[in-house]
């Protein structure tokens, strides 16, 4: 099967969808364990790689890029509805 997700940095807690993923679809990519996405993920958007509590840093490229605003389950879509910028709060 072809890879459908990308882990950019080993420290990351999100992966990037390489194409649109359907709910229940299995994630496949180098350095990623097999798991299913819980909801639809648009192409190039982020998928939680583990359960992330509210207020935790979202790590991509090995660096902090945002903070979660509520608990996010492994396999959930990670985007502006469940994270915020660390520097300017919405």
């Amino acid at each position, binding site marked *: 099967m072809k890879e459908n997700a*990308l882990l*950019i940095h080993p420290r990351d807690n999100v992966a*990037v*969808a*390489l194409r649109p993923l359907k709910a229940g679809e299995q994630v496949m990519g180098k350095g990623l364990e097999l798991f299913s996405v819980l909801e639809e993920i*648009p*192409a*190039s*958007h*982020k998928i939680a790689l583990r359960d992330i509590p509210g207020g935790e840093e*979202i790590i*991509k*490229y090995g*660096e*902090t*890029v*945002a903070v979660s605003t509520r608990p996010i389950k492994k396999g959930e879509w*990670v*985007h*502006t509805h469940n*994270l*915020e*910028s*660390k*520097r*300017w*709060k*919405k």
Partner: protein
Amino acid sequence: MSEITGYERKNGKFGIRNHVLVLPTVSCVNGVINHISREVPAAVCAPHPHGCGRGGPRDTQILFRVLAGMIHHPNVGAVVLIGLGCERSNTKSLRPFIEQAAKPIEIFNVQEEGGSLPTARKGAAAARRMLAEISGQPRVPLSWDKLMVAMECGGSDAMSGVTANVALGAVSDWLVEKGAAVIFGENTEMIGTAHVLARRAKNEEIANKIEQMIQQAEQRTQDIMGHLASWVISPGNMDGGMSTIAEKSMGCIFKGGSTTINQVVDYGEWPTEKGLILQDGPGYDADSMAGLAASGSQIMFFSSGRGTPAGFPAVPVIKVASNSRIYEAMKGDMDVNAGSLIEGKSLAELRGEMLEQMVFVINGEKTKAERNGMDVFTFMTVKPPF
């Protein structure tokens, strides 16, 4: 790698194009420029929306620096300068820059030449004359250390930082190794990356400058946008999978590759160093390209995930798509598909293709933005007009 060629200028710089530039001093005469453009399509006509109505020291500095940068640009062999007469950047005030340019420049002011259409006729005749005059100038061998390449990204998506900007970075590293200068700006898109960029600075002074520049960009964004600051990235960026400025910035800075940062220059300022240079300029593509061009870069790479056709007057812009979908959707605008990295192409292979394409473009082959006539020219201002 094949030989590269260019046009030697009297000031020791080299151009990779030999254009006649038709430049207005002020937006009031843009209609004249558009007339000349229809009459003489071979000239590069560059209307812009500025030139008056902003008198503050910083806006005046930028105005003169960008107009001078366009007149001095090494890809420009001759200039037809169209003025109005009463504007801030009038042709008399520009005279010191004109005299330093050491290239043929003809000047026409609408208020002195009998109005708009007579000025357009005279300007068009001058442009034709100059095209004939400079067309005989031969290309000569060019060494890489005479080249400055700008790296720009715009209309980014979350693939930009995984494919296209990584590819631009690989090209940047290759160019620096060859002795060229590589410049990138967009300080807004460095917010959140100060610690990453500062540790690559040549010395502590440059590290401090980088930190200060990014701190100012962050403060400015907050001052301008208030509680909307977190929306500083565009709606299209968010649809494309990016959520915050820090996420966007991490993807953006890849375009500068991994070498030491040798200098930080102001907007439109000419670097004195080779290697990797940062420019203190804004993230808005059109303004950013003007700053990078006014700094003397002869060619640009421009990555895009959402897709933008924008080019720049007199400076070839190589468009690099971050994903195959937008490459296919805008095939007439995109020169390179970095989305191929996701489909299994190696970075080394893609870089090789991009370098080959860059050599063709340097030696005269037109980019898609050049062929399509997609020039955009405007530049940064810091205060509202009065």
